[in-house]
């Protein structure tokens, strides 16, 4: 069954079962491998993408639930204001180690910043605790989110 979806502003048609998770459509059908597979059951956040700006776990989101909503992935998050600030802060703070979880971390952090320009520590815990980093880069993720929020304050 052909399914039409919109990914990063581009209309795509894929022929997969309707219950196929968005993750595999992105990675294996469309070849967009920036979104990562970590656990398959929404426990680690590596697969996080945005659906109409909301962070969701693509590993448990069936493709037929997307409808006309817009999917945004790591490949395009830099085109959003919050995503660009988060990516810059990630570079400035040298957050990344192995980097495998960081697509998901950046997607969760971008959604947080877009909806909450000045998150508290507790807001950060709430938005980011679903994203596991085995390298344990949490100290720097927190600092980077605060830096990105600071640039909000400065009107950046």
């Amino acid at each position, binding site marked *: 069954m052909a399914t039409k979806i919109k990914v990063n502003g581009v209309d795509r048609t894929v022929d*997969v*079962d309707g*219950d*196929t*998770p968005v*993750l*595999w*459509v992105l*990675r*294996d*059908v469309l*070849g*967009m*491998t*920036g*979104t*990562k*597979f*970590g*656990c*398959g*059951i929404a*426990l*680690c956040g*590596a697969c996080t993408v945005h659906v109409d700006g909301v962070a969701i776990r693509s590993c448990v989101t069936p493709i037929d639930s997307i409808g006309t909503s817009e999917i945004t*992935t*790591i*490949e395009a998050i*830099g085109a959003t204001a919050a995503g660009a600030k988060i*990516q810059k802060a*990630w*570079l400035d703070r*040298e*957050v*990344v*180690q*192995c*980097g*495998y*979880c*960081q*697509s998901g971390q*950046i997607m969760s952090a971008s959604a947080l910043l877009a909806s909450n320009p000045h998150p508290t520590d507790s807001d*950060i*815990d*709430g938005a*980011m*605790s679903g*994203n*596991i*980093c*085995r*390298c*344990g*880069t*949490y*100290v*720097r*993720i*927190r600092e980077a989110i605060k830096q990105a929020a600071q640039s909000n304050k400065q009107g950046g």
Partner: protein
Amino acid sequence: MTLDHLTSRTADPSRLTSANGVSRRGFLQAGAAVGGGLMLSLSLPFARDEAEAAAADGFAPNAFIRIEGDGQIVLTMPYVEMGQGTYTSIPMLIAEELEVELSQVQLEHAPPNERLYGNPLLAGVQATGNSNAIRAAWQPLRQAGATARTMLVSAAAKRWNVDPASCRAQSGEVLHPPTARSLKYGELAADAARMPVPESVALKRPQDFKLIGTPAKRLDTPAKVNGTAVYGIDVRPPGVQIATLAQSPVFGGRVKSVDDAAAKAVKGVRQIVRLDDAVAVVADHMGAAKKGLAALVIEWDDGPHAKLNTEAIVGELEQATLNPGAVAQNFGNVDTAMASAVTKLAATYQVPFLAHATMEPMNCTVHVRKDGCEVWVGNQVIPRAQAAAAKVTGLPLDKVVVHNHLIGGGFGRRLEIDGVTRAVEIAKHVDGPVKVVWTREEDIQHDMYRPTFFDRISAGLDGKGMPVAWSNRFAGSSIIARWLPPGFNNGLDPDTTEGAIDLVYALPNMHVEYLRVEPRGIPTAFWRSVGPSHNVFVTESFMDELAAAAKQDPVAYRLALLDKAPRAKAVLELVAEKAGWRQPLPERVGRGVSVQFVFATYMAQVAEVEVSKEGAVRVRRVVCAVDCGTVVNPDTVQAQIQSAVNFGITAALYGKITLKDGRVEQANFDSYQILRMNEAPAIEVHIVQSSEPPGGMGEAGTSAIVPAVTNAIFAATGKRLRKLPINAAELKRPV
């Protein structure tokens, strides 16, 4: 700096030639002008006779540096990047002496070739592990850079007909200040290749370093924040199919029967591959492969380990420690000293099996053809991956091409090639390339685990409470005995005993024995901080027990034993000061300390831990002081300690793999928990300035934090934990 070669998702034919280490060698030898023996002069004992030579228009003075005629400077990385920053720190060593900016270099993964890229600190195995990349590279790769620079300067001086001493190299150019002339390295490459190789080169003095010691930006970060970095799991050779698999849930079991009718009916499923001990579903995409896997009905013959449980394995270790083992350390006379001791302490300790749980699940992509085999994987031992594929296919080694990729977490898991073997076994049955991706459940349940250990430890104290005798006997698996058999001698290996036999403290009488006991029905492997992950927990916990028995402060007690170990003493004093060791804390909050010298690095940590009435443990703050000798990249040192601390807290609070009926009971991140953002402590790192040779940084933080946490729990609750992971039920406040 560009990572073009690391961000290519498809099989680029031009890369195939350089990936197998054969064709590129031929290319480089074509214009051989540089004499042999260069590698020998770089004192890489396992990389002798292949002095890299020049192409007609390029310059490759050794296996690590290539300067193309167009000016491209390519550095070949013998160590793999898995988050530890080696793709930045190793280029820093070369670039420092070569006099180029990091922004001017391009990186390539080294092909499998142990003569050129063998790790001198791992018996010549081309492996990335044991926190030793910087230690192994410190002299030879700076010399590699200096040699190349010297030859480039000579080439320029000859062309200008001036004294080489009047020229200098800077930012990828040779300058002649008196005449204000300059030539770029690319313009000099062909000439430099014809210059004699200098017998010896002078390395820069530390005070002249421009890069070493600076917090240089990591070269791999940009691609990792925009989704373009290519890990093994991301490769997409044309026509690739995706497979996932079920392996025998009991190690050593076999497939008895498979009903694949329902699986084959799943849209997108193309093929079912049945092996002796595993079944794989090959499909258009992982969604279909997983759905097909779930639809398979597999009957297993569980084999000899069908009834195995962890308690039986630990029981065997405990029993083994009742008998003498191989003597790993012995000085003074422990028996005499123990007999005269005023106070005697004895305890048993136990640590569990642990999984690696790298965020990138196990995966490997393979294309088997009649006349060759191509493998795409992120692995810490590329030549072994190549050999594994050759063995399974029956092809000669030179017909196997291995493309290495960025690694989404190693921690020791990718020092093994079981995943490559498995993928090639499957690929042999598949027409075209196939990417074998393990589900998280397979990844956890078919890991090769940090071994469980059982320790029997005792000590005697004199009238002042100071230790006069220290005796330890422990049993568990030796990874080295399997992984590097020549390293296992007389019942001992250097890894399993590291952290148990060379303590920083002045102990007058010491005796340590090890018994190699390999567990049945469960494979073991290296795990971040390896031998010390077990030994430092035991020794630093027990040292805390001695301090408590002597009714002394844990820091003061340790300091009194460190007069002959000034670097250890300095990190302990520093950490105590920075942590505010003597500052009062609320009830049920405690500080714990640890000190260690492992991986050639001195480290002390203080953990501040809060224990709730229900026994829940929260690590609030960690302070670390480290003396790792000369620091190449201080930001990486900070990052590695932050990382290693969280890795160790995860193990202390949650880490355990258990068997029931031969099956691993943990499966995903619900049953094998990893520390999360809301649980992560504040971490402060204080680096001691030093001009000693560099020590290892990737793992030390993990072994040090675990006893710091359990010692802090003792300080907070009075409860001594001798078995990991921490059991909250034991820590409930007594009513």
